[in-house]
């Protein structure tokens, strides 16, 4: 670089405000274009479509609030919303304690725990479709391992079509969800548990604390920020379960496992009610945004970011 350029460019970045603005616009433009075109604008288009009636082929007709009024007397959508909330609650109740225990277990220094951990993470590598097909074959009423095992060990009355029973399908899919995601949350807690200062345990042990007592008086309180992060992820993630439900049950039997994203997909693409499907999409988006806002307000963004610092 020549001296002349050096002189024309003083140390402060603010010295060339116009060029800075240029760069700022130019360099954010590609990312912004993708994002606006395929994420933000579609959100507004969904709002628009929710006021229309459309089968996906013929002309779109404006119907005003008709779809939205129909929403309030639609018991299936209410049922789907309720199922999605149940997914949130139950997957939290099952995943959180197990993930904490497994994460703390993996954080132990013993060699055998490191070996076991390597296997624990393997479910994370597969797609939801792969997981759905594998569990589907395990639970098959004719050739599935689970039922054959039950018959062999003398419990034939327990053998059944697990995913075909309206009362069982939902808890069974929830179990598969937990199987798929516990390794991920356990990984978070593994990270959290490793951050706990050793001195806390040493002091407690001198005071005569046993492992169980230490877990409740030291480990659990020290993991509080990880619990916040993990909870946020479980809650917001619960709104997006689609693949696994689609592959294992397609929402059935009946409406037994038709969670909100699935209900939206079936309404818009299979039943060709794009307008009403968009209403469900908007409900889903509002649910997601409100949930994130509430979680952020409730947990405090500062806590979240201070936890990131600690990592």
């Amino acid at each position, binding site marked *: *670089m020549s001296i002349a*350029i050096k002189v024309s460019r003083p*140390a402060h970045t603010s010295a060339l405000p116009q060029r800075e*603005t240029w760069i*700022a616009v130019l*360099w*954010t433009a590609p*990312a*912004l274009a*993708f*994002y606006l*075109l*395929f*994420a*933000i604008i*579609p*959100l507004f288009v*969904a709002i628009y*479509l929710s006021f229309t009636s459309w089968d996906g082929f013929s002309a779109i007709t404006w119907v005003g609030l008709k779809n939205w009024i129909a929403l309030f007397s639609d018991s299936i959508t209410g049922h789907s919303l309720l199922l999605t909330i149940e997914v949130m609650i139950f997957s939290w109740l099952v995943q959180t304690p197990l993930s904490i225990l497994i994460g703390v277990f993996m954080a132990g*220094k*013993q060699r*055998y725990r*490191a070996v*076991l951990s*390597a296997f*624990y*993470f*393997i479910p994370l590598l*597969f*797609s939801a*479709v*792969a997981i759905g*097909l*594998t*569990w589907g074959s395990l639970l098959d009423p004719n050739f*599935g*391992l689970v039922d054959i095992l039950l018959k062999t060990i003398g419990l034939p009355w327990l053998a059944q079509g697990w995913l075909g029973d309206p009362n069982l399908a939902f808890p069974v899919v929830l179990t598969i969800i937990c*199987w798929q995601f516990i*390794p*991920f949350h356990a*990984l*978070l807690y593994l*990270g959290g548990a*490793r951050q706990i200062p050793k001195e806390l345990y040493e002091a407690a042990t001198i005071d005569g604390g046993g492992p169980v007592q230490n877990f409740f008086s030291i480990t659990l309180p020290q993991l509080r920020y990880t619990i916040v*992060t993990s909870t946020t*992820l479980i809650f*917001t993630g619960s709104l997006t379960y*689609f693949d696994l439900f689609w592959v294992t049950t397609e929402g059935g039997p009946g409406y037994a496992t038709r969670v909100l*994203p699935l209900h*939206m997909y079936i309404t818009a*693409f299979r039943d060709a009610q794009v307008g009403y499907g*968009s209403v469900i*999409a*908007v409900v889903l*988006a509002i649910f997601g*945004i409100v*949930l*994130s806002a509430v979680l952020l307000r409730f947990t405090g963004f500062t806590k*979240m970011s201070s936890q990131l610092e600690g*990592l």
Partner: protein
Amino acid sequence: MGVSTLPERVVERQEHQGKKTPPRTGWGEIIPAFLGVVWLLFAFYPVLYMFVTSLRPLTDFFTDVPWLPPSHPTFDNYTYVLSNDFGLYFSNTVFVTVVSVLLMVAVSLFAAYTISRIRNRFTQAIFNLFLVGLAIPLQATIIPIYVLISDLHLYDTLLALILPNVAFGIPLSILVLVTYIRDIPKELHESMWIDGAGHFRILRNLVLPLSRPALITVIIYETIQVWNGFLFPLVLTQDPSVRVLPLGLWSYQGEYTTNVPAILAAVFLSATPIILLYIVGRRQLLGGLIAGFSK
């Protein structure tokens, strides 16, 4: 420190600390060890079952005891799947994944550099706009995306999968990269600036090499997301010529119906690149996975 450094450090420590363990004995160790093995059975057995069953000939599948090793192990199911367009689905998936992730990371890097180094109201507003994207459930926009892709005459093309994949990977990529680039000492940036380097040279010679860990994290996380993604292919493609693996698995299930060993062979094959990635770079892969946690 940035988000991305956490998992690597955590897993690394896990591996190194293993050696200097003071042996503990008694019930305090036996009970957790026992429960640990019980969890191993639950967590790993379905995957083992998938692999073992994929080695059974179809006739044996109906007669063998499912938890015993195959009586006549064979790779026939694999050759069968491979001769049934698996290669095509595989290369489609590789193409979509590589192009999506590269595009996504490239545009995110430029945006992240701008957001973290040129701090004014404009760039911070853009940053906040990207962060909103983390709260939107992907499914909510699928109907308009379908309409948009159809209007652009892109339905049933691989590009139809790439464009929305890029868009949905951008918010998290930018968040991780911004957190990381902000931690690069200002002095380095300023001394390059005084030496007459422009933004592009600073990005290429300073920020790019220094943010490598964050880039690797983002690349791994998004690779797994795109590789395993099901909804976009389901809604935006139909023709077998543009089928990607998750949709391919789904269609195998329809075609093969009761040929479970072949379906499971396809399931196992579809995950091989990710499994290899796990074997080669477990630390990076787990690190990459956990990067999504701020989502």
